[in-house]
């Protein structure tokens, strides 16, 4: 039988009434840790401050283009006189960058940092969120009250209209007769009577890529509209096909059998005329007997057999031969592709080709980024197109098969607004003048050590 009892009195006698005044290991640990850990944190902070300057305050890594200035916070965070705050203002951005206005009739202009958010890590600053655009374009209002664009676009998938060119049902304004169907047929007669199978990139290839596989003709330079491209990129944009590079090896411009395969320049009628006069003039100077030669009628165009005129002197001979050559060119050779109209003068008028360089006037498309795809994967109607007026631009649904607003996060291609659209109107860009020294930009940053050192 148990004799021990635990009465309150007995238990109370056990207790040292001053126990709370004496140190105890648990309380001691709590106290010293409460001193040590904040001290360690403070030491860490001061060490970071000493090593990396203000970098410790940074809320995240800088973008790819600004990462080099990481040590120099004050480049962007410009201290204002008499103010505690050093928040970034547009002035700091404009010290290095020009930022042309978006539209003259926009109702407000956001600050640079509203769209181009820094301290989000090594990402391009142009990768702005859709919300930066849809803050206006979701419910578009303009100063004149008449938006030129669809008034409500919320994302590439939602409410984004089809491309304007396709929406309006317009026809290709180009005047150069081109039958894609014929050009893509097998066994076409190529240069030197070779049989060829043409492919899209025989004519449509980025500027930086080698020229046509069928060779290029030595042609006089012609004026093209490629130079109008606002921001040319070597391989991104598909330049217009050029006669000299892409057509001339098959579509030759011979003008007289006396000159073998020599061709007239692919240029304006006045230039062609001057060329012909010079070439025939040179010829008769070296072959004066040619005036008395009688040529049989030219039967190259059976329905319009032309009687050869007999010249009485060298000047007439040059005039008649030039007329014959021009008749051949404008009645057959040029007319095959161009619209040739009488002008009322001695020379006909060749309609401007009016080729469209950029089918998406408010967007940019990078063919180079899509080089892994076949052309007809997107331009599906091209192999069957027979008319010049056919617009062969793919619809937005084609793009939406791969591009999503969520982009890579959703195993899709980038589909945010910036992928195709530019906010700033770079055609109005002004050059900026840099004022910083390397020391100012880099500060005390360590020099990168080259590999192998």
């Amino acid at each position, binding site marked *: 039988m148990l004799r021990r009892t635990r009465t309150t009195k007995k238990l109370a006698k056990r207790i040292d009434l001053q126990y709370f005044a004496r140190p105890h290991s648990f309380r001691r640990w709590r106290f010293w840790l409460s001193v040590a850990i*904040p001290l360690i944190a403070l030491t860490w902070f001061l060490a970071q401050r000493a090593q990396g300057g203000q970098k*410790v305050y940074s809320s995240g*890594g800088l973008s790819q283009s600004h990462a080099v200035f990481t040590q120099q916070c004050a480049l962007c965070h410009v201290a204002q006189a008499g103010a505690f705050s*050093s928040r970034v203002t547009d002035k700091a951005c404009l010290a290095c960058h020009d930022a042309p206005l978006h539209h003259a009739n926009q109702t407000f202009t956001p600050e640079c940092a509203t769209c181009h958010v820094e301290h989000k890590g090594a990402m391009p600053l142009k990768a*702005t969120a859709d919300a*930066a655009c849809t803050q206006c374009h979701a419910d578009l209002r303009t100063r004149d009250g008449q938006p030129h664009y669809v008034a409500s676009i919320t994302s590439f998938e939602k409410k984004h209209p089809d491309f304007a060119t396709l929406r309006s049902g317009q026809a290709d304004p180009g005047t150069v007769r081109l039958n894609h169907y014929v050009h893509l047929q097998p066994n076409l007669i190529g240069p030197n009577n070779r049989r060829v199978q043409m492919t899209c990139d025989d004519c449509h290839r980025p500027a930086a890529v080698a020229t046509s596989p069928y060779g290029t003709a030595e042609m006089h330079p012609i004026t093209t509209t490629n130079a109008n491209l606002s921001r040319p990129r070597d391989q991104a944009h598909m330049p217009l096909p050029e006669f000299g590079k892409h057509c001339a090896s098959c579509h030759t411009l011979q003008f007289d059998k006396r000159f073998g395969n020599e061709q007239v320049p692919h240029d304006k009628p006045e230039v062609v005329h001057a060329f012909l006069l010079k070439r025939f003039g040179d010829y008769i100077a070296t072959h004066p007997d040619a005036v008395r030669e009688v040529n049989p009628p030219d039967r190259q165009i059976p329905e319009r057999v032309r009687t050869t005129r007999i010249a009485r002197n060298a000047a007439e001979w040059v005039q008649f031969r030039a007329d014959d050559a021009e008749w051949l060119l404008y009645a057959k050779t040029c007319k095959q592709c161009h619209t040739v109209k009488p002008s009322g003068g001695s020379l006909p008028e060749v309609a401007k080709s009016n080729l469209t360089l950029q089918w998406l006037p408010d967007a940019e498309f990078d063919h180079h980024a899509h080089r892994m795809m076949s052309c007809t994967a997107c331009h599906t109607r091209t192999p069957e197109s027979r008319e010049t007026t056919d617009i062969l631009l793919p619809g937005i649904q084609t793009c939406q098969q791969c591009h999503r607003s969520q982009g890579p996060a959703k195993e899709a291609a980038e589909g945010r607004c910036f992928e195709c659209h530019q906010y700033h109107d770079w055609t109005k860009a002004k050059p900026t003048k840099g004022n910083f020294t390397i020391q100012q930009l880099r500060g005390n940053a360590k020099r990168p050590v080259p590999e192998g050192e």
Partner: protein
Amino acid sequence: MLIDHTHRKWLVASAVALTIATAVYIPYALRAPQGPRGGSALGLTYGIAGFLFMLFAGLLGLRKKFPVWRVGRAQSWMRGHLWLGLLSFPLILFHGGFHFGGPLTRLSMWMFVFVWISGILGAALQHFMPRFQTAQLPMETIYEQIDRVRGQLAEEASQLVDETCSALEGEVSHASERQRAMSASAGTQGGLTVASGLQANEQVSTQLRQFLDAEMRPYLQRPGSHAMTLGQGAQAQKLFQQFRVLLPPELHSNLDDLENICEEKRQLDKQSRLHKILHGWLLVHIPLSYALLLLGAVHAVVALKF
């Protein structure tokens, strides 16, 4: 601290505040051009509110240091600490848009994660463990007094062994009144022959003293010592059962007391272990809280500047 019906108002208020904060945050996060940011007006609001709650939670330590201050009941402060501290974490997450940011804020946020989780763990422990301890450890004492009580138990055990051995060695003067009474009634009881309590048995006495010196005193004097035979209830019981066979019945009560002393020691050891669990989280929670408040203050000043 028991989280009971007295916390209902705090619970409801915190739930309402969190619901409002979330309801405001979701459309803000979806519509903000570049996502939620600490520097936006709403982001700053969340940050200021969260930091004020953290500060209040941190002031509990000060309130405890000065219990005589007339600044509200300690229990109210504790409830405020619990619920506002709990609420401060989601507010700070809303402030940063669920991003931990750069070096300073990242360190602060990880500290906050540990402070918050240790706080929740501590609150849960403080809610459940005291009741568990009361049920499991009827012999518990003040934690800081365990060392002292352990010494007292060792002393008590020595006295009991002395008393028992004296009785076994025939020194009646050292035997207790009860033992002497038992001795007088030795003979036949209920048809069974029982031994006289005061029979001299020096051999058993020696064994008992050896047991005290080799097993019991070391066990009682050392903290923990779960690996020892007496540290395990079942084995201790067997050991004492062997002594019961050797000792006359009138001395069994002494063995019962010795066994009870060992049981109390086992409970004190268990109390010591449970106390470390019950309060150990504070060794993480409190120091990290102070460090967090320090870095949080630095962040607040720097954020206002940049």
